[in-house]
């Protein structure tokens, strides 16, 4: 079983339970990614990642920094947590969590910590917030 399938298996009862009242059941996410059905995002309370990303101001000085932030966020959607824990960014200087703290300024005082960050990674609101921030970065890069 792939990492994505294992993650989906772990959260499927939560997602499908939240959708139980709907007349139409949303099919499971494709096994090739960690994506979670969009409708599930509304069913789960935001965790540490969504709370950090929603309304966070992007702060970056160069296109290289913007692209590195984009790479880190994109990795969150496709790479398993076990890989991401050891991943290095910014020329090897920063971990993924350090990179996000260095370039994102959340709406309220908070700071991402590795333990709670990776525990929240597969949750639907986290994935939705990451996709939204990716779109914001792409819009910013297009203007530079």
């Amino acid at each position, binding site marked *: 079983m792939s990492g994505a399938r294992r993650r989906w298996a772990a959260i499927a009862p939560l997602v499908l339970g939240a959708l139980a009242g709907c007349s139409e059941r949303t099919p499971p996410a494709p096994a090739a990614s960690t994506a979670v059905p969009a409708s599930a995002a509304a069913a789960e309370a935001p965790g540490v990642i969504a709370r950090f990303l929603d309304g966070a*101001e992007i702060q970056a*000085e160069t296109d290289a920094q913007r692209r590195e932030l984009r790479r880190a966020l994109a990795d969150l959607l496709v790479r398993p947590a076990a890989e991401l824990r050891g991943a290095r960014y910014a020329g090897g200087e920063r971990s993924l969590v350090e990179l996000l703290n260095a370039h994102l300024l959340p709406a309220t005082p908070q700071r991402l910590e590795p333990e709670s960050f990776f525990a929240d990674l597969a949750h639907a609101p986290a994935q939705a917030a990451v996709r939204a921030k990716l779109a914001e970065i792409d*819009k910013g890069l297009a203007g530079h």
Partner: protein
Amino acid sequence: MGKCVNHPARDGAYSVNKKDYCADCRKGIEAAAKKVDKHVEPKACFVWYVANNDWQPITGTGCAHWLAHQRGIRKGGANEQCLEGYTYRVKTLVGGTSTVALDKVKVNDIYCSPSKDHTGLVIKVTPDAKNPDMPKILIRHDSSAQGKVAENEFATYFKGKGTFHR
């Protein structure tokens, strides 16, 4: 001195920006300031109170924070100001300002990147007789990419892109 703003049952032991903090908060502030990225200036006030006695460095690059200290800008609410009360968000910093045309830029105007994710201070403007609409503009900024407060040309380092505000 009054009570701690974060722990109302405790006596204040440290005061900054007209707010009192207890001895534990003071320790937390000093410990968090030691973890602030090396390029950030000033460091001592680039900290925020998260919760439950937890003080942490403010996240982000600190570019707006440095500029706010230089210009004495204290815009925004509590979640937009450092411990000393200076603005640390780029969008808040330039909000409400007027955009200045390139040929009208002066020293002390604020530079802002096209996507409003970086900011700096104009420190020198040199007119170009051959091209009066494009003066040579030198910008001082808290540079996370260069690891220090640096001075760079608008036309080269910033690729001539961005806006100026007053």
